[in-house]
């Protein structure tokens, strides 16, 4: 066999293809080479084109390449094809989908929460940021300083994620500054230098974010609230002082004619249920609000219950510029290139994304004694990030274009306790999302254009909410009194009716009649009367159309019922009876629901589904994904509908196989589709024997064997 010669030729060919690399990439290679020399190592062998095309698609676009995509790359003789593919993939919506999954894990973005509308808007916002490659420092700043309603910006979801703002601060510091301070919320940190007071000093920067309000509070505007500090008044000019005093007098007069407490209470009560759609949709910043030390604070430097002023953990102080809030100052401090950890953390995260392991591990437990495994390289990467103005795409582009990235994956695991010298990337299992997205690709081809489809329903509903809140705000308590009185009266009248009916039922029950069904019917009636009164109030406030929309609520059907792939009935006829029954059973049940990428599914997927079985993060804890093998995973691939993706006549793969012709050619296509390569000579020998032995069953055998084989799941 001409294997050695072919191998040599392909090696030379790939070496020649690495034409004109970026100077920044070269610099990284150089820093690594210096480290290898010191350690007495050298680079891994170069990765073949086949390995590289599969890896690039998975690493950047989060899925395997389609047959056509892989073919196009492999057959191209363009010496620049690697860097061109990298650029193409970085610009694709595959990148958007894949990077979205990354940040959703880090930010614990989940739509399985009460404030569903906000979570969905947050997801959309995040995809937007990823797609437009918002500079990372700006991205973080946007997250931190966002406020208002979800219709203003989905990013308020960042604050809505945790009701407890003390906890939220710990996650913020962990994610963006790579520092773990969560222990210090309740006592001085047991392993690091942070005290409980340090924790509260930091929490003082973010404590004023209120996410509980529905955006409006029914309070009388009292003149008290308008009063200015005495010193300020004294310092005013004579003219200003007179104007101020006049204003205060007018207010006091108006106050007398305002609503009494009872009316306000009635408004609150009536509007409570009506305003339910507005829950979890706002984030309001209160500049004056500071945290207090807990009642069991036990250290001598302060007393329990004392208010704590803001102070940064390290680096410079956060200076509040005129017109800025303390939250703005906090965000500036955190995202500044001068912050000792902000840049290192993101550079290290992106390095880990490309190479599988960080220069600093773990990525979010840095202490003063943390040293990168290659300090010169870490410093350069930080510099690179700043030079590229925190453009993640630009930064990643440099990494993917290094000679080192384009080497074969290291063939052995680095044992715990040893330093990894990055002679190439490490071998990684695909993430749950990559596995799912790869099955989608096999079934439907490249569906990147369905990522982040325009969600008109979402925006319509947000618009309704915005208008609703606006109406309530502009009317205020005074404007709503009439509506409230009417609504209240109606509720009372309805209740009276229901009470009468109930009394009659109770009498019947006393006589021994079985009133269970009638009681249920009455309960239903009571409920619908209540709802209709609330709806009437809503209609009187925002008009019929908007009211109907708000009543309908936001319930996106992310189930794949409408999106199920249609199958060719004729192909169905060709199957045996058992195959048909099996096929239809799986198609009805779920058919794996292989219609869209993981980023378009509920976040996270529900327990027991494919994505969760393969270790998708539950998004309750930061980066909680797992890549470990489990028996349910094996069972899914062995007996679940995973192989149906091939059997389904509508699947792209099935269509390609149908075109392929002989069993040998079909199997060759299978290898290209699943592994982006041809069988090795050893494999070919086995395959030839299988075809001989198994005849018509051979193709199905090999399909099943490859899907349950480990190499499909790993990124070489």
């Amino acid at each position, binding site marked *: 066999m001409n294997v050695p010669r072919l191998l040599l030729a392909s090696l030379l060919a790939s070496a020649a293809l690495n034409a004109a690399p970026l100077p920044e990439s070269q610099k990284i290679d150089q820093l690594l080479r210096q480290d290898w020399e010191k350690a007495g190592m050298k680079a891994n062998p170069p990765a073949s084109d086949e390995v590289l095309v599969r890896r690039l698609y998975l690493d950047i676009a989060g899925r395997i390449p389609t047959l056509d995509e892989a073919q196009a790359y492999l057959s191209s003789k363009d010496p620049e094809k690697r860097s061109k593919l990298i650029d193409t993939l970085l610009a694709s919506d595959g990148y958007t989908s894949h990077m979205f999954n990354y940040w959703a894990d880090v930010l614990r973005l989940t739509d399985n929460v009460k404030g569903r509308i906000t979570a969905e808007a947050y997801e959309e916002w995040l995809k937007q940021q990823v797609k437009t490659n918002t500079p990372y420092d700006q991205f973080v700043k946007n997250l931190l300083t966002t406020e208002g309603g979800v219709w203003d910006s989905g990013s308020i979801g960042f604050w809505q994620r945790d009701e407890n703002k003390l906890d939220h601060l710990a996650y913020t510091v962990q994610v963006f500054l790579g520092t773990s301070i969560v222990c210090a919320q309740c006592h001085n940190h047991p392993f690091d230098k942070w005290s409980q007071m340090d924790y509260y000093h930091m929490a003082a920067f973010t404590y004023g974010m209120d996410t509980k309000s529905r955006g409006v509070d029914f309070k009388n505007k009292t003149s008290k609230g308008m009063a200015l500090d005495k010193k300020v008044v004294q310092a005013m000019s004579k003219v200003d002082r007179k104007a101020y005093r006049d204003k205060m007098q007018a207010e006091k007069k108006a106050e007398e004619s305002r609503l009494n407490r009872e009316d306000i209470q009635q408004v609150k009560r009536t509007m409570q249920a009506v305003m339910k759609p507005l829950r979890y949709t706002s984030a309001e910043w209160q500049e004056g609000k500071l945290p207090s030390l807990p009642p069991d604070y036990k250290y001598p430097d302060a007393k329990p219950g004392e208010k704590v002023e803001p102070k940064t953990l390290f680096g410079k102080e956060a200076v509040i510029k005129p017109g800025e809030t303390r939250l703005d100052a906090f965000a500036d401090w955190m995202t500044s290139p001068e912050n000792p950890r902000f840049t290192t953390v993101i550079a290290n995260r992106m390095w880990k994304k490309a190479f599988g392991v960080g220069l600093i591990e773990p990525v979010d437990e840095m202490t003063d004694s943390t040293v990168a495994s290659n300090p010169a390289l870490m410093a350069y990467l930080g510099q690179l990030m700043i030079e590229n103005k925190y453009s993640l795409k630009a930064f990643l582009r440099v990494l993917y274009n290094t000679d080192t990235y384009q080497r074969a994956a290291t063939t052995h*695991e680095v044992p715990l306790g040893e330093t990894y010298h990055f002679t190439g990337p490490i071998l990684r299992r695909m993430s749950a999302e990559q596995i799912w997205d790869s099955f989608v690709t096999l079934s439907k081809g490249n569906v990147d254009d369905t990522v982040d489809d325009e969600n008109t329903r979402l925006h319509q509903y947000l618009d309704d909410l915005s208008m609703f809140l606006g109406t309530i705000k502009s009317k205020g308590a005074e404007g709503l009194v009439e509506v409230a009185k009417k609504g209240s009266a109606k509720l009372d009248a309805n209740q009276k009716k229901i009470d009468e009916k109930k009394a009659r039922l109770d009498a019947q029950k006393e006589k021994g009649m079985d009133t269970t069904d009638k009681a249920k019917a009455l309960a239903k009636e009571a409920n619908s009367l209540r709802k209709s009164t609330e709806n009437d109030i809503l209609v009187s406030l925002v008009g019929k159309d908007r009211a109907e929309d708000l009543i309908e609520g936001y319930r996106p059907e992310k189930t794949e019922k409408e999106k199920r792939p249609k199958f060719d009935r004729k192909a169905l006829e060709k199957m045996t009876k058992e195959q048909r029954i099996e096929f239809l059973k799986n198609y009805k049940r779920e058919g794996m629901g292989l219609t869209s990428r993981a980023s378009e599914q509920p976040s996270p997927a529900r327990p027991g589904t494919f994505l969760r079985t393969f270790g998708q993060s539950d998004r309750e*804890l930061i980066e909680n994904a797992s890549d470990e093998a489990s028996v349910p995973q094996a069972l*899914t691939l062995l007996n679940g509908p995973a192989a149906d993706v091939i059997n389904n006549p509508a699947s792209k793969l099935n269509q390609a196989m149908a075109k392929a012709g002989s069993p040998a050619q079909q199997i060759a296509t299978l290898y290209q589709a699943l592994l982006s390569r041809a069988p090795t000579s050893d494999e070919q020998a086995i395959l030839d024997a299988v075809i001989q032995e198994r005849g018509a069953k051979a193709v199905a055998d090999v399909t099943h064997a490859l899907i349950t084989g480990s190499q499909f799941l790993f990124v070489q």
Partner: protein
Amino acid sequence: MKNLLHSCDDVTRRDFAKTIAKTCLGVSVMSALAPRGFAAPFEGSSKAKQAATAKRVIYLYMSGGMTHLDTFGCVPGADTMGGTKTIRTSADGVQIGELLPHTAKMMHRGAIINSLTSTQGAHAQGNYFQHTSYAMRGAIRHPSMGAWLQKFQGKGNAELPGSVIITNDSKHPGGGFFEAACQPLLLNDPARGLQNSRRPGALSESDFDYRLGLSARLDQGFQQAYNYTNVKAYADVYKDAIKVMKSEDLDAFDLSKESAETHAEYGDGTFAQGCLLARRLVEHGVRFVEVNLGGWDMHQDIAARLPERCGDLDQALGTLLTDLERRGLLDDTLVVLTSEFGRTPKINQNDGRDHYPKAFSSVLWGGGIAGGQVYGKTDKGIEVTENKVSVPDFNSTIAYALGLPLDLVLYSSTKRPFTVTDKGQPITSLFG
């Protein structure tokens, strides 16, 4: 100078979590079950311990906040009872709500605790607290009782999961920070059996076996080229999966093996089937099974909604208890009935009851409990007047029945110390 890079003595969060292909269904039994941790006492935890009187637990969770006054926390004659009347039970002097006649026949084996009290009045927080004895925070997921049981005492049947939870709650804490092998199996649908555990109908056994062999052969090059723990794990896991598929104990999940009469006795619906499945699972050696019944969050029209909900509960629960006793299992099976909180003594303007954690009720049957008693009291379901029981106290009573060490500290991957029920103190007087 501490070098946190891959340092072997510093177990980082993710290294800690790395295990080899062993899961709740993994056949390989967890050897090193000796829990990590010092014998150093955890401040405040109970030191009480007994030889286990319960070998297994069936944990019936009423989600949404089960009203106490209309079920087990009745105060006959009080104006807070709503329209609910009480009935006598098989236990002298003990009365429960009229909507639970089947259960009433088994109260001679049960102990009602009417003095539960909590501060967690929201569903998510209350639910989490009841299941774990710790407050819900985003920095960690605590394990629930089934996982602790497996951690301390191992599985009852090596080929089945250590604990099984039959629920629709997608946020159940499950096994929390414990490793994969201690994670419970979560089932949505008890009737469906174990997902993907049977060969597809159209595939013959010989074809199935052939493909397995072929897969291993085609995978060989890759397996030999890469020396990674996880790579090997993905070869080994199939061996474990086959063992599960061929295991006779899988029948435990097959409800069709029960007669039509038995099905009729338990009733229709997910909860009834869940209880039947729970009985089968414990017979096959699963030591902790949770079954969830939802729909208790009756903010409106409670009098109209209770009959159906209580009906579902009563039929399944009554049958389960009778069934366990008939099979001689009730003596060492602890059956638990609980919820996240109770409901307001005052009926609200929508004829319902709202959340009420200040006083509520739970019940324990079998497993060493001295039956026919009521522990703790409220005035009219409003305030606990005698023998306050916190949620950790309640859970530590379950742990005590199982003979678990209440003060043994285990560490999460973030190096935080925990005990099975934090500082809960068991109600030892309940045990006969």
